[in-house]
């Protein structure tokens, strides 16, 4: 049996870790929300500012999980699988890239490199020097069955833990949910990784 040892919600209204709200937002601006969250992390990482919004939210969620679960540092560099998913791939950045060249403009190379959703996994890997399994999937809704099945498969195979995320950044909305899966109930949250439990956690934002 595998367990959820930490989880985090980020929406346009608030951000919570393990069910406790740590930020609420009084703005409609995604830039401001993201910048507020980044500032509250209290870190300096110049690459952050170059990321697209999808990667920024993925990065922040990962940092929040790490903060709530410092034991993450004890895992080996190949041990943590990264499984991420969302509904519309990199659509928001795709549109920006398209805008850069329509009407005869010059296509922007720095936008183009973010027109793949798995770049988010790359950014997290680079930041943390994690070399483990990678997979980005696209689905209509948060697929609790897939995440439960595939985490269990990888943890029974060649991963010791999995960091998972459902990360959506649309025109005016952030909707993201992250969770960290371990082989033992290290944090005594009593949350075995089961589809029903995952679904309950996700909707309890």
């Amino acid at each position, binding site marked *: 049996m595998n367990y959820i040892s930490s989880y985090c919600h980020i929406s346009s209204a608030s951000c919570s870790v393990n069910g406790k709200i740590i930020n609420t937002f009084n703005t409609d601006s995604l830039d401001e929300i993201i910048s507020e969250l980044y500032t509250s992390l209290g870190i300096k990482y110049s690459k952050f500012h170059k990321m697209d919004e999808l990667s920024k939210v993925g990065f922040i969620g990962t940092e929040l999980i790490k903060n709530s679960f410092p034991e993450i540092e004890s895992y080996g560099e190949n041990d943590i699988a990264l499984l991420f998913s969302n509904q519309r791939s990199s659509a928001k950045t795709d549109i920006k890239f398209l805008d850069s060249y329509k009407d005869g403009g010059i296509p922007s190379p720095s936008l183009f490199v973010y027109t*793949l959703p798995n*770049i988010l996994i790359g950014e997290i890997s680079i930041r943390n020097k994690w*070399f483990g399994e990678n997979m980005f999937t696209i689905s209509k809704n948060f697929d609790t069955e897939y995440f439960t099945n595939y985490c269990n498969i990888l943890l029974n195979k060649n991963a010791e833990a999995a960091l998972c995320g459902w990360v959506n950044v649309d025109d005016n909305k952030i909707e993201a949910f992250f969770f960290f899966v371990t082989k033992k109930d290290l944090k005594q949250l009593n949350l075995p990784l089961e589809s029903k439990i995952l679904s309950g956690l996700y909707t309890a934002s």
Partner: protein
Amino acid sequence: MITYIGSENIISPLGSSAQENFLQVKNGKSGINLFKNVGVGKEDLHLSKIKILTVDYKFDYLLSNCLNNIVNESAASIIDSEDTIVIISTTKGDIEDNLTTPIQQSINKLQKEFNLAHTPIVISNACISGVLAMNTANNFIQSNTYKHAFVIGADAISSFVLYGFQSLYAVSDEPCQPFDKERKGITLGEAAAGVLMSDDESVFKTEPLEFVEGTSSNDANHISGPSRTGEGLYRTVSKTLELGNVNVAEIDFISAHGTGTLFNDEMESIAFDRLDMNNIPLNSLKGYFGHTLGAAGLIESAIAMQSIRNNTLIKSLGFKEEGTSGGINILAENLEKEVTTILKTASGFGGCNASAIIRKLK
């Protein structure tokens, strides 16, 4: 338990079956042609374009036809079974025709058309998507989550992707020349390719092969530049060999990624050197099909499977003179030899790398 793999299919400018495509590449035929005014600055550029593919929603068309071809090569009863999952590999779906939801609608259509019991799983992990999709299918089968998996990769050529690679100065002005000294970048291609994987040998109309193992690893280095040390590729191949219980000496052939860019091909040569795979015959098929992104891993696996079936390794088209520092054995000519076990690798943006081993049934 064995994961069987077979019923491979390829839809490319060179044909609509794996056999047809294999025959064409064996004869040195490439799908790459020059197209007028297609570049962002109206340059003429080489592409591997399916000429009959003039419909809108090309991605839909490719997915549906490829899946249909594979269904025809398998037991009729499994496609709509509860025990079956369809796994789709793509980078951009129908980006040209549907910018905001380029993938979702096609998946809904496919599910209805084939009356699938489960919504297909869509993997979008840059250029390793195809290999990752096979690895995922194997993991599902080995864990008894599903018994059968239809794995389909597809991507169509779009201005979006072409202009993007042009903005990176990564598009060759000649047909791509992977691993060659004179290589200048990629040539884009479009295609669909797929396989059936199952725990049941009897669902294949033609004798299947064995999918031994597959893993992935990240370089943790840069989002668009390959690792100078081939770190992620080295790690995934090491892991796949270890988990699959396969020695380097057992590998008869490497179906490499070989995009034709300076840094990618160099990175691969360094990784294979670190793996002591210098003498194993290796090719890139991008000189025949171009870089087909989400379809690449599956096309190249399908051709490698045909190599096992036909005991013929295909030369790396466009390769003349060694242009990488690892000291690797790139096939300059076709090679007839007994082929039992092959290694397939892929690397992509986001620093991702994947590998898989397929072999003849014992």
